[in-house]
């Protein structure tokens, strides 16, 4: 298939970079090739615009498209589904000196929303699952976050009219994103103690260690706060059922 590969080399180079050998028939070959090159660029700009709508709006359509075209050079699509095209976009934006400060955080937030939407399914932990736990089992209990739950710490994100957007000034914020039983994605700001506790769970801390962590915020009221947080996490479906199975 050397002849086929050579032909596809040329056509692909024309579409991706506007150069390359061509073996196309007809006098208007240049225009016919341009249709493919334009379609490639427009399609992938649209895909990332759908994945990063707030990032696109922050930049404006034209500037966003220019950023996407630059991104595609070092990060061409390598997976069959366009779903994965934006996986490196936030990190790449962080390295771009002409990107607005903090824009990569907005992109990262949007990417986590997508990751939450179609993360792997798993049963959620229910109150009845933990009600039967013996009191002496609690300190060593290692809770697991549901695979669709995501945590993010940011410096330049804010909530404006109910939507996450780029802040004008530094505004350190900690976020939780999760998916409910109907498949809808939600997010909320976290208080520092809750964020610390959830990060501790992600680092495989025991419930005892989690309470120690909360004690730095709440002193003797740490157990009450732990119970309150646990109740909310269970109601939101943030914990995986295998938190119990693994013990």
């Amino acid at each position: 298939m050397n002849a086929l590969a050579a032909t596809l080399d040329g056509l692909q180079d024309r579409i991706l970079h506007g150069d390359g050998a061509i073996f196309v028939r007809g006098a208007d070959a240049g225009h016919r090739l341009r249709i493919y090159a334009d379609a490639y660029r427009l399609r992938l700009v649209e895909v990332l615009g759908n994945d990063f709508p707030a990032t696109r709006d922050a930049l404006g359509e034209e500037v966003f498209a220019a950023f996407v075209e630059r991104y595609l050079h070092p990060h061409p699509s390598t997976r069959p589904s366009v779903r994965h095209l934006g996986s490196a976009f936030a990190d790449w934006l962080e390295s771009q000196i002409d990107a607005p400060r903090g824009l990569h955080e907005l992109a990262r937030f949007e990417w986590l929303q997508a990751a939450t939407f179609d993360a792997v399914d798993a049963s959620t932990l229910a109150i009845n699952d933990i009600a039967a736990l013996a009191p002496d089992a609690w300190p060593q209990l290692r809770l697991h976050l549901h695979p669709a739950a995501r945590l993010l710490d940011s410096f330049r994100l804010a909530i404006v009219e109910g939507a996450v957007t780029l802040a004008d000034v530094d505004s350190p914020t900690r976020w939780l994103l999760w998916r409910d039983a109907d498949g809808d994605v939600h997010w909320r700001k976290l208080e520092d103690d809750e964020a610390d506790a959830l990060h501790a769970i992600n680092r495989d801390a025991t419930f005892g260690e989690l309470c120690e962590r909360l004690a730095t915020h709440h002193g003797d009221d740490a157990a009450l706060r732990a119970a309150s947080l646990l109740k909310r996490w269970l109601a939101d479906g943030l914990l995986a059922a295998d938190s119990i199975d693994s013990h």
Partner: protein
Amino acid sequence: MNHTLQGFGLGLRPQHYAALLDGPDDAVDWLEIVSENFLVDGGRPLAMLDRFAERWPLAMHGVALDIGGSDPLDRDYLRALANLANRAKPAIVSDHLCWSRHRGVQMHDLLPLPQTGEVVRHVAARVRQVQDALGMRLALENVSSYLRFAGDELDEAAFLSAIAAESGCALLLDVNNVYVNAHNHGFDAFAFIDALPRDAVAQIHLAGHSVDALGSGLLIDTHDAPVRDGVWTLYAHALRRFGAVPSMIERDDHIPPLAETLAELDIARGIAADTLLERAA
């Protein structure tokens, strides 16, 4: 669920999820999913797939198989496709006669192949590998295109026919793509239909197209508009040749409300009823 396709279907799009699920079963006879949209780990896409699979026969239509490319077939993708087929239990699995990946880069487009005997043999060998991996027959769709290669040895109908004959694959005939290519490459669309093997066409797509906004006079396969009159005429011709082939409206952009799409499907039903009656007489 009866896992065969008969009658008239729609390309399943998220904009129609609620209206389809709230409506009667007989609004459509079957649904076609875009396979890649469901190659995800979990969440709503797969939950919705299960709900639709409970009520309607499904077809799986892929865009990333790269059946004609010179990169090796993507084994991980084939495994994912086989897993999805195991879940969706499709009556048909299809993709396009094109290339879509080269040197590891996904183009996310359905790009034309040189139409040569060598490529026929290359594609046929890969079709057999795919059919072995999936455990079922593959259907390949004719793609719309804007260019032809200087080294082409076969016209498009002969190219499709040779691949079907050599590989044993089925054909998914996109009537709009025939219409667009006939215009763009200057061939007779009716003769194209007549040159395809009678027994290989397993499914038909109907869609709309646009005129090149840059003024070249070429037709662009946008799949974002109602089916044009010329495509309906060609559809009737295809039914006269191939008989009652399961047919569907494929709309990829500017998705209208379900009722509007179903009304367009009713046009297909009407043409099929008239044509097949005439064919039987």
